[in-house]
């Protein structure tokens, strides 16, 4: 319409590998490493190098990535301040535990690998559906609240969910749910984490994601562009809850024992610490935050107990300090609003 000076920025050079392809390459690479790792640890090969404890750590990292990435959808992209993520995780964990122990035959009664796969698909699918349903309901109830009040209400629901489970005798009440079969391993968690990251990336880099971010950037403008904020928020809540449920389902079938208390405010806070460490509105940040936090805690534990065994507990004091220091010095976290290339959108189709 008007005459503009020539473009100041030349278009970036065409990319050799589109991000779509790069994403699959990363997936293939991770699975190519995970499969032999899992098999060798299962077979007890190289016990000196491949400590099962390391695999356990990697499994925890994978589950936490699912939790943190899905919370990032709400707190990073949608720009809300949801404080009840552990509640959705609890719903998923208990649903999966119930399905695995009461509704499904044990894996031993089914053909070896296929049987476990079927059990996982059913239990995790159930966990996701149930958590999504609860997330949807909570989204419906809270559609008018924003900011601080949304934080309060989501935390309130977290506590109500935990409290409700404590009062349900058939899932063990406050004593917890025991005897859950161990249907997951690192490999299954890795597949689920990659699936979560892929699906979340796809959604974020679609019209849905643009609408979520626009709500964060300016809710009134978004509304006056025809966005139904209640509807968009409710989708985000439902999706985030579903993935938290997935993590819960994996958690239950990995730990084999869950109590209501493991899903309270403290767990939510831990998820928040990893989220903010990694950075808001960045899936890469979510991965990095989880890995950095987990490794740091391990490192601190080893370092402190090298001085004196009882000192190891003092790392609990260091993790909140890290959080405070991040907030005081680098509020965007390690990777706020930035993505690694394999998670980035296509530049120009």
């Amino acid at each position, binding site marked *: 319409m008007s005459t503009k000076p020539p473009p100041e920025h030349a278009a970036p050079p065409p990319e050799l590998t589109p991000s779509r392809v790069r994403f699959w390459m990363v997936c293939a690479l991770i699975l190519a490493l995970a499969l032999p790792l899992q098999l060798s640890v299962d077979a007890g090969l190289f016990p000196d190098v491949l400590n099962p404890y390391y695999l356990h750590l990697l499994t925890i990292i994978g589950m936490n990535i699912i939790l943190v990435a899905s919370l990032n959808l709400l707190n990073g992209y949608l720009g809300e301040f949801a404080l009840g993520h552990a509640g959705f995780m609890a719903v998923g964990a208990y649903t999966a535990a119930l399905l695995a122990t009461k509704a499904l035959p044990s894996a031993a009664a089914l053909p070896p690998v296929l049987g476990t796969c079927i059990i996982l698909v059913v239990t995790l699918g159930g966990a996701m559906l149930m958590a999504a349903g609860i997330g949807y309901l909570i989204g419906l109830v809270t559609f008018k609240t924003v900011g601080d009040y949304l934080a309060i209400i989501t935390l309130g629901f977290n506590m109500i969910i935990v409290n409700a489970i404590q009062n349900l005798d058939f899932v063990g009440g406050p004593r917890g749910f025991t005897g859950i079969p161990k249907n997951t391993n690192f490999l299954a968690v890795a597949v689920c984490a990659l699936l979560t990251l892929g699906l979340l990336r796809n959604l974020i880099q679609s019209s849905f994601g643009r609408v979520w971010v626009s709500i964060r950037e300016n809710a009134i403008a978004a509304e006056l562009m*025809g966005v139904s904020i209640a509807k968009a928020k409710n989708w985000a809540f439902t999706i985030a809850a579903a993935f938290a449920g997935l993590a819960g389902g994996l958690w239950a079938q990995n730990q084999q024992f869950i109590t209501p208390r493991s899903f309270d405010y403290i767990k939510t806070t831990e998820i928040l610490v990893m989220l903010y460490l990694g950075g808001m509105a960045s899936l890469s940040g979510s991965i990095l935050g989880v890995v950095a936090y987990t490794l740091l805690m391990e490192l601190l534990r080893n370092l402190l107990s090298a001085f004196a065994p009882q000192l190891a507990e003092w790392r609990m004091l260091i993790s909140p300090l890290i959080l405070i220091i991040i907030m005081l010095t680098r509020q965007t976290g390690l990777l706020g609003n930035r993505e690694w290339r394999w998670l980035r959108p296509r530049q120009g189709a």
Partner: protein
Amino acid sequence: MGLRITDLTKSFGGLTAVDGFNLELGDRDLQGIIGPNGAGKTTVFNLITGVYAPDRGQIQLGEHTVSGLPSDAIARAGIARTFQNIRLFAQMTVLDNITMALHARAGYGLWEAAFRTGNFHRQEARLLAESREHLARFGLLERQREQAGSLPYGEQRRLEIARALATGPKVLLLDEPAAGMNPREVEELIQLIQQVHRDFSLAILLIEHQLPVVMELCREVQVLDFGQTIASGAPQEVVRNPLVIEAYLGEEEAPA
């Protein structure tokens, strides 16, 4: 089509911000609302776009009554606006600001987006092409990858207008588009609005504090003071109206 407003009234506490406002905006009209600060101009826009619910009165877009609907429904019915204090999606790219505005015509569902079906890729390519074409019309294509918040002020205004138009509105409301602009930018803006009015098939309602903008653009203006219409008609006549002169003299800025 067009916008018809009758007896629009809104009070806050004891203060009547808009009192019995009427408007008849034809299909391809370009009208203005002027008035001193605090006269209730922006409140009129907020009532039209459903930010506030009117106490009394009716707003009709063509055959449909839109007063009482929520903001997003009014926007989808075909009323788009810009804001006095620019409200871009500052951390999104210039391109995404436009593509986002096409959300209602995305043409794919959640599952298709999550699993990137063929339809998703086709529709997304269409959205991207449409957005770029739109940006090109506003001379912003070379800025497409920049963050909207990092654009210079004049271009932010232009992007905001472009974004409003991307929703395909029947009525465009511009809230003090020339605010904070230097004379050269104002000149460019006037040309832009004239061009938009010519190229897009829509009606424009303009709030402006600077009289020259309104004088040049509008066939008809209303003057608001303390929520009431004190004069209306052709801009050249209206500015000679003693009531209008008095209302403006109450301010440091006299009419030009």
